[in-house]
């Protein structure tokens, strides 16, 4: 099986050559984009009487999207090949007056007039909806998709009437476990085949297929081969209805109760852009967020599960020994412990590569005040990798911590045995062992999750997870990315790493103002030449490549995956008035 991300041997779809050979369309694009990128030519078309400059590779849907005219579709996806399954996108064009043509399959050409408002188009939209709903079960109340379901959206927009068809609904399998992450409900499926095409073309592990015929058709896995691809979760995202569901999120929350906020996945050093969805102090799921130069609109299954560390086994209360004494007293006691040894040498600061740049900066500021003699870079152990989105380094910010350390002029060491170290202050404890800290007389941890190190700590201060605070991370090729505060309710005593450092520094009598992430970032930007003059608020949504950190293999600044490797050019912005839940916004659904 070929690695995901590499060009397929042949176009996986069997569509007519007339579409594919024109270049730039999905399917065709994969074979051609790398070698002979089609020269984009701008053509003028009229969408409902409004003139628009469209790319000659655009289909009618994308051309209309440029002026904010929404042509509805289920099966079309800007990054997948064209199937023409759903018949929802039929519109009229000047090429075929009086007839309806599929907006996904037909490409624009100079002077083409597209009309989406004629009675024939409207009738077709209503008719299509009616047919799609014939066998659809009355499931909204128990369906995880409801609230973000295309059937619901389009029904209200294009149909909003009772059905004229009265018949028995077909019964099909309701709960097929496709694999570790995906469960399938055949009754809800509208046979758009997006999932099949995704597995073929993007994940490049063809694990799904359509079986049976007509209204009895279903999506199925092959015998003995579950849907166990590392990218299987994406099929759930792109499923326009509630047929494929994420087993991790299933029945956990209704989607309209969660708050969606942009963040960065902390699963590995790829730094996939995500939306984190939360309610109260709980995270519920991560969804990929569009970033052409990092993850396009996809993410891996492992990354989807990283939010669990935010919900489970947290250090909740500021502790002194085993007593939850509250932040103020914990800080007082930590200062009592540190004051005698401050500046005496024998202090080690351990920084995890899971820390944001701001946390690392705060740790280094604290270390500078205490005149720490040793700095340790800890982190999660390396794991598997592939050519697409999964990196071996399972820490999101190794580069950032290294950059911060270099900016402060300190050397980071491996977490090995400590010699002559009296006190250890650990910012996040990932990868630290009890053995590592056993010689330390004073152990202060600022930790997110309970482990053997936090159990031994004299003082344990609960730190916010990356999803709960604002911060920046630098991915494996030097992309500085911003993550926002996604979880709105505060969990117990948790505070950001820089807040703890600020309080400790204040207690030690040399206060540094670190009241928000921006101030911590400024402290770093003052010292790091790579970031000089940069403000936290100035970092764009999709990040910023720090040229000096680019590895040699990225000589030509080729992001990974390469932009357009799997995709045609999706629209870059959402025109005003369009629904944000669309592919155009960056979410993959």
């Amino acid at each position, binding site marked *: 099986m070929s690695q995901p991300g590499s060009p397929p041997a042949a176009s996986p779809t069997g569509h007519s050559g007339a579409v594919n050979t024109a270049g730039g369309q999905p399917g065709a694009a994969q074979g051609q984009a790398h070698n002979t990128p089609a020269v984009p030519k701008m053509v003028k078309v009229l969408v409902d009487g409004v003139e628009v400059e469209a790319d000659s590779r655009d289909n009618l849907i994308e051309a209309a999207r440029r002026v904010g005219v929404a042509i509805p579709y289920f099966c079309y996806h800007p990054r997948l090949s064209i199937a023409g399954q759903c018949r929802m996108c039929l519109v009229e064009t000047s090429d075929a007056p009086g007839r309806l043509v599929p907006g996904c399959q037909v490409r624009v050409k100079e002077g083409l007039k597209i009309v989406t408002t004629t009675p024939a188009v409207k009738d077709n939209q209503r008719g299509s909806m009616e047919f799609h709903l014939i066998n659809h079960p009355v499931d909204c109340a128990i369906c995880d998709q409801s*609230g*973000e379901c295309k059937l619901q*959206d389009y029904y209200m927009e294009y149909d909003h009437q009772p059905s004229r068809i009265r018949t028995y609904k077909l019964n099909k399998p309701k709960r097929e476990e496709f694999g570790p992450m995906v469960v399938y409900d055949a009754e809800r499926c509208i046979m758009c085949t997006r999932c099949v095409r995704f597995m073929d073309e993007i994940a490049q592990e063809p694990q799904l297929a359509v079986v049976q015929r007509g209204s009895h058709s279903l999506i199925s896995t092959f015998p003995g081969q579950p849907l166990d691809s590392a990218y299987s979760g994406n099929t759930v995202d792109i499923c326009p209805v509630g047929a494929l569901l994420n087993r991790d999120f299933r029945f956990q929350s209704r*989607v*309209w*109760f*969660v*708050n*969606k*906020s*942009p963040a960065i996945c902390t699963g590995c050093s790829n730094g996939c852009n995500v939306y984190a969805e939360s*309610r109260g102090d709980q995270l519920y799921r991560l969804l990929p967020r569009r970033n052409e130069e990092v993850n396009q609109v996809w993410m891996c299954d492992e990354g989807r599960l990283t939010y669990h560390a935010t919900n489970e086994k947290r250090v909740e209360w500021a502790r002194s020994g085993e007593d939850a*004494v*509250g*932040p*103020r*007293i914990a800080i007082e006691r930590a200062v009592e412990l540190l004051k005698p040894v401050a500046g005496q040498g024998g202090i080690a600061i351990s920084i995890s590569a899971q820390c944001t740049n701001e946390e690392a900066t705060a740790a280094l500021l604290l270390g500078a005040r205490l005149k720490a003699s040793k700095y340790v870079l800890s982190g999660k152990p390396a794991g598997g990798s592939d050519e697409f989105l999964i990196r071996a380094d399972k820490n999101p910010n190794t580069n950032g911590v290294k950059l911060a350390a270099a900016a402060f002029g300190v050397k980071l060491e491996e977490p090995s045995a400590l010699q002559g170290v009296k006190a250890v202050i650990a910012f996040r404890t990932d990868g630290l062992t009890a053995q590592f800290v056993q010689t330390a007389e004073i152990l202060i941890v600022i930790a997110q999750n309970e482990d053997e190190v936090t159990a031994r700590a004299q003082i344990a201060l609960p730190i916010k997870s990356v999803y709960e605070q*604002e911060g920046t991370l630098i991915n494996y090729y030097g992309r500085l990315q911003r993550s*926002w*505060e*996604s979880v*709105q309710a*505060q969990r117990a*005593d948790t505070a950001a790493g820089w807040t703890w450092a600020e309080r400790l520094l204040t207690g030690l009598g040399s206060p540094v103002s670190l009241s928000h992430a921006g101030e911590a970032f400024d402290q770093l930007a003052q010292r790091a030449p790579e970031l000089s003059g940069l403000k936290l*608020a100035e970092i764009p*949504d999709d990040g910023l490549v720090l040229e000096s950190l680019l590895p040699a293999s990225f000589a030509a600044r080729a992001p990974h995956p390469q932009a357009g490797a799997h995709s045609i050019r999706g629209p870059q912005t959402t025109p*005003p008035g369009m*629904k*944000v*839940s669309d592919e155009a916004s960056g979410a993959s659904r």
Partner: protein
Amino acid sequence: MSQALVDLLREKFPDAVLSSASHRGDEVVAVTREKLVEVIAFLRNDKPDLKLLRDIVAVDMLTYKTEMTGGGSISSNEVSAYSIAHKGTPEPRYYVAYNLYSINKKHSLRIRVDLKSTDLKIPSITSLYKTSDWWERYLFDMFGIVFEGHPNLQRLLMYPEFVGHPLRKDYPVRKRQPLVQEQDFPDLVRGPGPGPGGAGVPMSQTHVGRQNVDPNTYD
């Protein structure tokens, strides 16, 4: 009917009228802040005879364009940190609208003044309409808009110690307010002395259970 009023205003104050619009039969005229009092005085005292000030309204346009809909609409009670930090402030962010009506002539007109978030000042019209007194206090309370020349610009519905302006779109709907320090006055019944309610010891300081709690977390 009201269109005639708009035309009259345009003719009378060509440099004050910025734009006019009509939506579902409501005529709106946007005027400059400098000419506001003059325009309204004309509308009230002269031929238009708009003697009744129905109300004064303010709207914060911060999330007008960016507010989420769809599945997130119910949950997005809070404007996320991302939206506020990132999507920027539309300027002018606020507008104040005056709904005027004429009982004799049965026509109405809305006067609208745009306000930038950096310069939240607007002349008061308390000299023209007595009823504008409370409406202006209300808007000062809810939006923090300063009505210059108002005789008594204090909060109306909220208490004086209230922090923030609740109807601004970046005021979270579930935001909690800091505890108000109890005013220190002698207990008339028990006389001065220690203990809750006694002179010199505010109640909030005598509550034992709150001592270990970080005051920063109570906002």
